[in-house]
């Protein structure tokens, strides 16, 4: 239940091709995250899977059956929209019950499922309110409730947390992960927040301009990015890239070193530079180091205790075993 396969799927809006031919398999029960910069086609891809957009060529299989021409309601998928898309004139109970009523389920079963969803999502206290009388987080939960009562083959989320404040976002992130562990249903989750991607995903799909740049587990993407784009996109702060003579020492066109893999010292090291802005987060400190002659800025993560002043001269040493090497085309070497 819930294995989705995309076969040479393309999508064009008029003349412009938004999704070039794309193959992807999402296994049953997997939490898959689509990430990529704005406008890369994440929402479009999700809407193609949902059936809200017609695919231009190719086909989509759900559980081994060709779903290309199946209307959205019949695909057995549930979607949670970025704007929540709750029905404003219905109470929370009616909102959650709506898909069941449309399926002509009997009232006893509807009540059982709605009450169950409401208790799972802590909505019992608001069940008779209208969406307009709820906070953002509560609305989000109603939208999720409306999705889970249908017991769908897969859940589709389109940036569901982007309208919430930072604290609530962390909370809802955990709740959705928890829900996934409990239901073990396939989930496809679109976001451009790479922290969400790293923390929630079983599998991350990195997209750029409709192309899949890499598919893999969060750690695979972190440890072995296939190209410069993925290397720069996954990880926060961004990986540092060094070109030229220093890269040639590693037999590469470009080398990438993550900020957490560079040691900083006031006395000795491989690269000499001058401290610019330092960001103290308490647990960690990020130093932006200039004038190294390698790149405009190198970002370095150090322990929260370490402290250098603006303008101090420092020495940086990359950890040799985790230096990423890329060729002239930007592809990973080794």
């Amino acid at each position, binding site marked *: 239940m819930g294995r989705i396969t995309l076969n040479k799927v393309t999508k064009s809006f008029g003349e412009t091709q938004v999704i070039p031919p794309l193959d992807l398999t999402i296994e049953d029960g997997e939490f898959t995250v689509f990430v990529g910069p704005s406008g890369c086609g994440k929402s479009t891809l999700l809407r193609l899977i*949902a059936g809200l957009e017609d695919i231009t060529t190719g086909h989509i299989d759900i559980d081994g059956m060709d779903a290309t021409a199946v209307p959205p309601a019949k695909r057995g998928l549930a979607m949670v929209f970025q704007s929540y*898309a709750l029905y404003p004139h219905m109470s929370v109970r009616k909102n959650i019950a709506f898909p069941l009523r449309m399926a002509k389920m009997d009232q006893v079963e509807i009540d059982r499922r709605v009450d169950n969803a409401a208790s799972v999502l802590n909505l019992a206290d608001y069940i008779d309110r209208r969406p307009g009388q709820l906070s953002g987080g509560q609305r989000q939960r109603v939208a999720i409730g409306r999705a889970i009562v249908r017991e769908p083959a897969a859940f589709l989320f389109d940036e569901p947390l982007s309208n919430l404040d930072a604290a609530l976002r962390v909370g809802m992130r955990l709740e959705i992960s928890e829900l996934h562990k409990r239901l073990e249903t396939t989930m496809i989750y679109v976001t451009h927040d790479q922290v969400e991607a790293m923390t929630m995903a079983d599998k991350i799909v990195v997209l750029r301009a409709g192309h899949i740049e890499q598919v893999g587990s969060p750690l695979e993407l972190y440890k072995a990015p296939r190209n410069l784009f993925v290397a720069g996109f996954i990880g926060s702060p961004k990986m540092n890239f060094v070109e030229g003579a220093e890269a040639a020492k590693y037999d590469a066109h470009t080398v990438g070193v993550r900020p957490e893999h560079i040691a900083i010292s006031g006395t000795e090291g491989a690269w000499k530079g001058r401290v610019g802005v330092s960001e103290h987060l308490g647990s960690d400190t990020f130093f932006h180091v200039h004038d190294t002659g390698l790149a405009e800025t190198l970002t370095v993560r150090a322990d929260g205790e370490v402290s250098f002043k603006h303008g101090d001269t420092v020495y940086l040493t990359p950890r040799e075993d985790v230096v990423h090497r890329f060729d002239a085309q930007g592809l990973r070497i080794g």
Partner: protein
Amino acid sequence: MATQSSRSAARLMMAPAVILLLGWMLAPLITTLYFSFRRYLPLRGGDQGWVGFENYTRFIGSSAFWPSVQTTLIIVGGVLVITVLLGIVLALLLDQPMWGQGIVRILVIAPFFVMPTVSALVWKNMFMDPVNGLFAHLWKFFGATPVEWLSQASLQSIVMIVSWQWLPFATLILLTAVQSLDGEQLEAAEMDGAPFIKRFWYIVLPHLGRAITIVILIQTIFLLSIFAEIFVTTGGAFGTRTLTYLIFQRVLESQNIGLGSAGGVYAIILANIVAIFLMRIVGKNLDN
């Protein structure tokens, strides 16, 4: 507008407008009330002093009174039903992406710019004329006897003409409401398994509730006083005499200003009853 001083300043600045509006409304109202208690026959002795409630009892006692109230309500009700239903259909159609959308929308709105007198004349002479009208030709083409619209189906004809005039208004208001509906709600309903009819019933219609209320209230205000359409087409004959028309006849044809004024007061009462009634039924949509 929260502080004490800003509130009183606001009151001061609004005062001229409020006073002007009050005067504007009160002056005719008071004159009407004044004349309604007097015997005033301009061509037969002029103002002949107070008569108490005589005008009121005579107006309501006339055999033409209750039929005219009924006619008024039928016309208002008929036009409301037609314009709201067709307005919703047209609004949904016009919301679809199509070729030449701009032009079609202007065409749909056009009837609203035609003066009532003109449109009634056009309908009467070009469409409904039993000899030369387009409908007559159409009927003859199919071998039927042409209908004498304005005498045989007079009330229906007037409802049709007035609906034609007001449909653009209803369509326009409803179209803006349709356009303001969040597309994701419809998509969510589609994924929830609601076919088109149910999406319309559960999502679109509740969303339109407020706009429909506004259309009904505004149209009622104007429809209660339609006059030109009746004057030009049937002249109040064949059961098309509305309350407004009856008042017109009392004042101008019978030259009885006192009686007409009493009718005017009844018209105000009728309008208020209708308004309260409508507010009760549909006004609750405005609350949420």
